[in-house]
């Protein structure tokens, strides 16, 4: 077990508490940098989505994880970012300009949503953000002069000096850079007064107020930052898909973003990345299930002594099951429930538990991470 001796205030502030962090994150970055030369184009494409989802996840974590304001409307922020990019593209605005403009506009919208949200708590806030997302969706579908309505908009290939193909390594590096910058910026924020004010608001608004924190202002700030990050991600999302339409930005997508942070863990930025990897990789997994599983199981049945005909039946049954329409939804549902029930701290929590298990071996106690039940009904009158 490693003990950290802090001999300077700097030790407390710096991003990497000890050299081990630098090595491991350096290694990770190196792997991510050479990934385009190793992985298949399909997996690279998924990796780009991981970056985009993780960026949104970080944005959502700032609001939900650190400021304690739940939102089921982040798809709308993503949409605003995406549509701003697609709209400005028509006037040959260069990428850096519309990228920043999209983030800025989404941030402003986020702040505007934050104002009415100031007086709302818990479930009321969730409903309000859902309502907001519905209204945005409807506006996108109806404001045809700008958004082209339900027809959707084409997103032109990115021009950044040269043409940046949405499948090429440059686009991947761009997404990765946005993600890394977002994470670093957020970490900076979290070790500054603003980040601490967010956490204070999450844990006790009354105490935060009595410590001189302007709760309303910081909630609005949190909404704005979270929305702006999501808006940036929206631009990349639009480029990656090369076509956007209102029905892409539904409640379903907002829920997916919540799943990202829920599965990853809501208490650390690691959660956003891990959750994004998990969520995006469900798709390749399902494809595998559809393509290969029936053969594998049928083959297994055959080797286990089933007749050719029966093995064939089994294979067909598995194929039918794996390609059933609702399978993805059912798997989502089961995953959410299982995580809430058995892994409330998410994947990152599991990682910490494993790490602690080896650090303390053989003295690890399961109770270290036990959740405290609060039966007293306090949330209603916070």
């Amino acid at each position, binding site marked *: 077990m490693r003990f950290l001796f802090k001999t300077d205030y700097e030790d407390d*502030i710096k991003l990497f508490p000890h050299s081990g962090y630098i090595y491991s994150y350096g290694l990770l970055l190196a792997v991510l940098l050479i990934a385009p030369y190793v992985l298949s184009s399909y997996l690279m494409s998924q990796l780009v989505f991981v970056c985009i989802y993780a960026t949104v996840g970080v944005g959502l974590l700032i609001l939900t994880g650190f400021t304690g304001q739940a939102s089921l409307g982040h798809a709308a922020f993503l949409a605003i970012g995406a549509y701003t990019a697609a709209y400005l593209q028509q006037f040959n605005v260069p990428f850096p300009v519309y990228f920043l403009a999209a983030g800025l506009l989404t941030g402003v919208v986020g702040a505007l949503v934050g104002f009415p949200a100031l007086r709302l708590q818990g479930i009321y806030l969730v409903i309000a953000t859902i309502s907001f997302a519905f209204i945005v969706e409807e506006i996108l579908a109806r404001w045809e002069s700008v958004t082209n309505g339900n027809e959707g908009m084409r997103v032109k290939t990115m021009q950044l000096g040269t043409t940046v193909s949405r499948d090429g390594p440059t686009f991947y590096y761009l997404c990765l850079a946005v993600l890394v910058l977002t994470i670093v910026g957020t970490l900076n*924020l979290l070790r500054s007064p603003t980040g601490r004010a967010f956490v204070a608001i999450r844990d006790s608004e009354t105490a935060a107020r009595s410590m001189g924190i302007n709760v309303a202002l910081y909630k609005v700030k949190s909404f704005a930052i979270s929305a702006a990050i999501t808006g940036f991600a929206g631009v990349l999302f639009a480029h990656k898909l090369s076509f956007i339409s209102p029905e892409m930005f539904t409640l379903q997508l907002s829920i997916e973003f919540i799943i990202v942070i829920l599965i990853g863990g809501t208490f650390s930025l690691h959660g956003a990345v891990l959750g994004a990897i998990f969520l995006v990789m469900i798709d390749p997994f399902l494809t595998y299930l559809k393509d290969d599983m029936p053969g594998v199981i049928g083959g297994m049945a055959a080797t286990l002594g089933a007749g050719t005909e029966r093995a064939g039946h089994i294979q067909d049954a598995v194929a039918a099951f794996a390609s059933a329409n609702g399978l993805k939804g059912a798997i989502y549902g089961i995953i959410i429930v299982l995580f809430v029930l058995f892994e409330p701290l998410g994947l990152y929590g599991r990682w910490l538990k494993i790490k602690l298990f080896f650090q303390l071996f053989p003295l690890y106690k399961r109770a270290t991470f036990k959740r405290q039940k609060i039966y007293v009904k306090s949330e209603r009158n916070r």
Partner: protein
Amino acid sequence: MSYFRAENLSLHFGGLKAVDAVSFAVEKGEILSIIGPNGAGKSSIFNLISRIYPPTSGKIFFEDQDITQEPAYDIAKLGIARTFQNIELFENATVLSNLLVGRHRHSTTRLWQELLFLPSVRAGEKAHRRRVEQVIEFLDLEPYRDKLISGLPYGVRKVIELARALCSEPKLILLDEPSSGLNVEETDDMSFWIRDMKSELGITVLMVEHDMTLVNRVSDRVIALNYGRVLAMGSPSEVQHHPDVVAAYLGA
């Protein structure tokens, strides 16, 4: 003119008069205790001062400034810090970050500077930590510096809440039952700290307390309340022997 003054302060919830035309003044550098039976309106007075409730009527002055209409977060900026009866700490954060939140009123950095963590932010962070360490030393909190609040015992949390209030470098501190839930030794410590706060840090203390030993030991003056009204005001022994106070406590 007094340092801190409440004039005809009232707080009514419908027909219930939680605080009823209470006037009192606190002189700079004194320790004033408010005593009274449960439901006498003691905590309500604190909640009025820290603007959790708006008063039904009356005015509050601090350093000759009318603060009755100030927003709640500005009260701390004026130099009034408080603790809570039922501990309001930031549960899922470390002791250190709780205390650093106490420094919030002294932070001057802007959002974009913090996003880039510019040298000014870094310098600010170091300065905050230096002050926080002084408070940690003052209240003997060294062993708990990097611990999460949610794992700490009640007595320690009580001290941390006091520490958080001190970190904001207040001129006036409001202590809401600082000894409730503490054992005899911890209460002793608390009384030393309260006196040190006055003598070493020059902080004016306004305190709500039930424990008469603690009140007698630290207070310069005492106010007794019942049913939202002032029963008596004066030195600790004067107030304790005031017939109305005796009647209120013994129910005569």
